[in-house]
Each structure stands twice: as C-alpha cells, then as structure tokens.
C-alpha cells in the first residue's frame, strides 16, 4: 500500500532525490514528516503546488494519497 512521491524541478535538488515511495494512506502532515527540514520548510511555502492522481489540489493540506497514487510536488514554473 504505497504512493509514489515526485519532487519536480529544483525540489529534487533540495530533497536529494527525484522520487520516493511512501506508505498510504498519506496525508499532508505525513508527507512533511518524510522529508528533510529544508524541503519541509519549502513545501509549506505557498509557491509550492501539489498534484495527486494527476489533479492539482486547490488546498494542498487536504492531501490524502491512497495506494497507487502519484503525488507530485510542484515548485514555481518557468517555461518558454
């Protein structure tokens, strides 16, 4: 019963990995407890978005990942 956590863009450098597995069910507090202090602080910044199962969450603290879900941690974007 696991979810896949993805650290996108610069978050991968901060977390020290591009992805990790986590036990489910996994809520926002649970996710924050799995990362290092710097990453935890950054994830709580409003600049960071969270997607679960391919949908961006309107309120990331309401994360509730189930078995098989992919959770993507999305820092500020820069395309073009």
């Amino acid at each position, binding site marked *: 019963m696991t979810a896949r956590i993805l650290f996108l*863009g610069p978050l991968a450098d901060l977390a020290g990995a591009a992805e990790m597995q986590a036990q489910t069910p996994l809520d926002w507090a649970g996710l924050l407890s799995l990362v290092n202090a710097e990453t935890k602080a950054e994830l709580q910044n409003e600049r960071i978005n969270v997607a679960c199962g*391919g949908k*961006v969450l309107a309120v990331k603290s309401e994360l509730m990942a189930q078995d098989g879900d992919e959770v*993507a941690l*999305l820092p500020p*974007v*820069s*395309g*073009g």
Partner: protein
Amino acid sequence: MRDIRLLTNPFVPGMLIGPFANANPGLGGICTFVGEVRGEGGVEALELTHYEPLTLPGMEELADTACARFGLMGLLMVHRIGKLRCGEPIVCVSAAAKHRRGAIDAVDFCMDHLKSAAWFWKREKRADGWHWIEPRDQDHADLARWK
C-alpha cells in the same frame, strides 16, 4: 486547425508554421512567436523538465481558453522539453484569426501563460554547473495583465 505538441527533439519553426498557415485558408492575419535559447552570460545548455500528467492537458486547456477569448481560426503551440543547445527554438506559438488584434493578443496571452503558468521547469548550464531559472517579476506582471 489546432496543433498542440511537446517535442523532445530540435525543430525548425518554418516547418511547422508554413503548413499551419496553409491549413487556415481565409485567415486575415497570422502572428507567430518563436523563443530561442540565448547563449549570453556563459550559458552552455538549457534543460526543460515537465510533469507529463499535467503539461499537455494544461496546454490544451490554455489553447481552449485562447481560441475562445480571441476568436481564433487556428492555434499552433509547440514546446520543447529535454536538453537544448544555444540557438535552438524552445517554444513556438502561432495564431490565425480574421483580424490582427486577435492573432497578436492570442500569441501574447499564450506566451505569458507558457512562461509562468504551465508545468515546465528550466535550468541552464554554465561553467560552474546547472542553475535553475526562477520566473522573473516581469513574467508575473505580464501574466497579471490577462486577469
């Protein structure tokens, strides 16, 4: 005619724009923007990563919005991902409409959104290694014009 794509290999804008223009007979104006990797400041390469489950659906949604808002006849929106070298095109947006205002504004709108509201992350390689690019304040100000 609508053509929304992510490309992992280098592309030649003219090879996309020519057929796109021909695919929209009766257009009054067509506006095109091409962004390229600038080599200044010692930049050796650029890498664009994205989050696949969101990127293309987000671009399709952006295209829907632009087509409706600016009454477009056609929209081409192509974005590179992966490693790019200096001088390579990163992005190409082309909009066809009856009048110039819709075509020009649509390109402006799509570029502002691709810059700071689409799921891409960009880093550049300089002599001392890779550096992530943060969106500039100007990019956020540009985006806010459309609210």
